[in-house]
């Protein structure tokens, strides 16, 4: 099992927690001194950094939400002067202004360090070639991966997303071994590779792909793995926390290791803000432990997951979380039932006769319509088969969600094709 930094990646839990606490204290003292907004919030909560005596005391501190990022915008949460900053990344916000995250030189180097751990963990090494098909720009995804791969000594092809014809040519001409790509685009790319009559094993040197930036199911992972004959690793990150590389899968592919020397994680009940018992589903809350320019304390990610407390067979002591089970923002309610798009996707991808594309359309609060493209290869001209397929979809979704959906079977290629983040839920409801 290869490691980039074996000492820290396998640090025994007691020592890891000591390191976390040491870094937490340092971070709290810094934001209290240098960031007026944090000082005000701590004072309102009647708490000082010195009141935090151990890691469990973190629950006494107030949360940071995305709304806090707009207070004293854009430079207000910095703990260093502007001349220490070397990069800005943003993430689209709902208020019209983007969330702005600044990186010092040390922060850039550190985010690359974490990616290096992730890549080496999956078996990537010097001499291999990574095609980076994420968007280069304000979004963190491509740049952070790029710097991390370079740190390992991997040759990076900065392809960016889209232009599928060119993606395939790059993969063929240069012998790409790894892709960094969104799941929906990976599916599309794989289907184009098939349509063009390529045999992925014979015509490409692809070994692995790193998928992130949008939710997708285990079934989708297996589908792409089988189509391309490669290993796919889940990658979790958010702009507010460097972007990709916060959590990453090891070869056991059962949960994503969170680099706990850099991030303190909590799982809370999104309604009450209280911690949930270990192993239960809740919202992931992260505190940066090693960030210079813009530390964030108890940041509400809005991502739902749970901690896997058991030690991992790979030997890393950093705990894992499950794949992101949904976003508290993505969750929608029909007939009073909470439903996550991933639940629906998981069911659809397990049904034979269903193609890759689907859409959930909400027109009222007591009905959901699921539009599903049928699999062209499995069409046999018999309408009875299609009627049964539709019934199977309705039954399986009803038994999993308790809501009976309306299902529309569509011709393949009818729904919009994704070359970026797929829009799976169309909510046309007005209150």
């Amino acid at each position, binding site marked *: 099992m290869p490691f980039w930094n074996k000492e820290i990646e396998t640090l025994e839990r007691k020592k890891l927690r000591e390191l976390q606490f040491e870094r937490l204290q340092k971070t709290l003292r810094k934001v209290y001194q240098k960031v007026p907004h944090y000082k005000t919030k701590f004072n309102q909560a009647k708490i000082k950094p010195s009141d935090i005596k151990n890691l469990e005391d973190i629950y006494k501190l107030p949360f940071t939400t995305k709304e806090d990022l707009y207070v004293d915008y854009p430079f207000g949460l910095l703990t260093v002067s502007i001349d220490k900053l070397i990069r800005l990344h943003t993430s689209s916000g709902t208020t019209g202004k983007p969330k702005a995250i600044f990186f010092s030189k040390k922060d850039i180097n550190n985010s690359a360090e974490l990616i290096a751990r992730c890549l080496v963990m999956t078996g990537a090494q010097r001499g291999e070639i990574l095609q980076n098909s994420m968007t280069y720009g304000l979004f963190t995804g491509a740049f952070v991966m790029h710097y991390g791969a370079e740190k390992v000594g991997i040759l990076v092809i900065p392809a960016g997303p889209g232009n599928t014809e060119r993606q395939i040519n790059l993969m063929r001409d240069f012998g790409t071994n790894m892709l960094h790509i969104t799941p929906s685009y990976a599916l599309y790319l794989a289907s184009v590779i098939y349509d063009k009559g390529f045999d992925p094993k014979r015509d490409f040197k692809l070994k692995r792909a790193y998928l992130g930036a949008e939710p997708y199911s285990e079934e989708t992972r297996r589908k792409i793995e089988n189509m391309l004959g490669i290993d796919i690793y889940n990658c979790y990150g958010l702009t507010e926390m460097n972007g990709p590389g916060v959590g990453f899968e090891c070869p056991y592919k059962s949960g994503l290791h969170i680099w706990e020397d850099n991030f303190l994680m909590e799982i809370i009940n999104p309604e009450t803000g209280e911690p949930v018992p270990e192993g239960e589903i809740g919202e992931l809350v992260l505190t940066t432990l090693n960030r210079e320019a813009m530390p964030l304390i108890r940041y509400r990610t809005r991502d739902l997951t749970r901690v896997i407390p058991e030690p991992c067979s790979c030997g890393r002591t950093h705990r894992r979380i499950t794949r992101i089970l949904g976003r508290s923002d993505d969750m929608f309610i029909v007939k009073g039932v909470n439903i996550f798009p991933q639940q629906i996707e998981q069911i659809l991808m397990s049904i034979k006769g269903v193609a890759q594309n689907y859409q959930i359309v909400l027109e009222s609060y007591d009905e959901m319509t699921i539009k599903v493209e*049928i699999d*062209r290869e499995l*069409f*046999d*001209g*018999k*309408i*009875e088969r*299609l*009627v049964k397929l539709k019934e199977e979809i309705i039954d399986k979704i009803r038994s999993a969600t308790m809501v009976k959906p309306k299902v*529309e*079977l*569509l*011709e*393949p*290629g*009818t729904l919009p094709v994704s070359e970026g983040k797929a829009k799976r839920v169309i909510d046309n409801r007005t209150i």
Partner: protein
Amino acid sequence: MDKVYIISVFAENKPGRLERVTKVLAEANINILAFSITSTNGFGVIKFMVNRCQEAYKLLKEKGFTVSLNEAIGIEMKDQPGGLYEVVKILSSKGINIESASVYVAETRKKAYLIVEVEDTAKAMESLKEENLKFLKPQEIV
């Protein structure tokens, strides 16, 4: 005894779907000899018998349609009262269940053919071998 082929196309129940399919066939100068539409709530299957079926199948597939090529049997019937009854009576006496059917009227009302898709084409043809029936041959489809 020969079997013939039917082309089946999946279509959503929306205006313009039949137009899109038939346009492809028209532009390739392919002649439609029989056709039927089965539809249920929201979607349906359009079935065609055409003169150049392999070519039509390939063409529709290339154009992105969801299409399949299915075996069928064409049985001659008299174009007169009771013509259909005579044929269907034989099929049911052999326990052959019709999954889909259409009619091909050849040579402007001199004869007609009942085109049927059944569960097992080979088995059905075997059991009809001894009957006094005339079957449509692929070369007659022009």
